[in-house]
């Protein structure tokens, strides 16, 4: 299991390749990548992601450990960025490795659902009109109930 919190960009292709080649007897590798899109009202210049340095790494590790304990996973990877990002930049990725694809897919979805509302990150969008904190969506909180 590997959890990385960093400001710098990551190389998705290399991370996915390294993760996939690091395991034998894993029949399924699932990866998910989150990419910065425009603000809902359009015209976004940049996004800044604030985080809670002392807590972020531990919170992500706790979520990843839970995924590994609940599904039959060989491994899990979480990379999440903070700082300034622009449209099209990759914000984060998760990868899961399992013998069978159902475990890999479900655990990746679980990781995503928990990262959204249980990892201490806050997004702020900057447009020509000023800056606004992104509001948490009720749907994201509701998504946790299925697990």
């Amino acid at each position, binding site marked *: 299991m590997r959890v990385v919190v960093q400001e710098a960009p990551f190389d998705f292709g290399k991370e996915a390749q390294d993760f996939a080649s690091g395991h034998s007897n894993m029949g399924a590798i699932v990866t998910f990548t989150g990419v910065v899109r425009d603000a809902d009202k359009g015209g976004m210049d940049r996004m800044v992601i*604030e985080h*809670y340095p*002392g807590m972020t790494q531990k919170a992500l590790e706790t979520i990843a450990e839970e995924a590994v304990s609940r599904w039959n996973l060989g491994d899990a990877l979480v990379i999440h960025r903070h700082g300034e990002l622009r449209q099209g930049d990759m914000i984060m990725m998760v990868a899961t490795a399992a013998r069978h694809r159902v475990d890999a897919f479900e655990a990746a979805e679980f990781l995503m659902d928990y*990262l959204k509302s249980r990892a*201490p990150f806050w*997004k702020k969008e900057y447009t020509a009109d000023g800056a606004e*904190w*992104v509001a948490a969506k009720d749907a994201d909180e509701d998504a946790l109930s299925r697990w």
Partner: protein
Amino acid sequence: MDVLYFAWVRERIGIPKEKVETTAKTVAELVEELKAREERYAVAFSDLSALRVAVDQELTDFDASIEGVREVAFFPPMTGG
């Protein structure tokens, strides 16, 4: 203890972190003390349903004990992923 603020809570209170001497036993009591200090705290803490709290870097709720803890953090619902 250290009290930390993030995102719009930090902006409304105007500082990211401060040392607080308190006799409060729970997060809720600490919030009441802070609200009584100055208007900017009263504004930031006016709607607790819009806030989340972590005690010693673990998410918890406003009834949680803060006796002997090192760090309490207040912030809006998280928007990771």
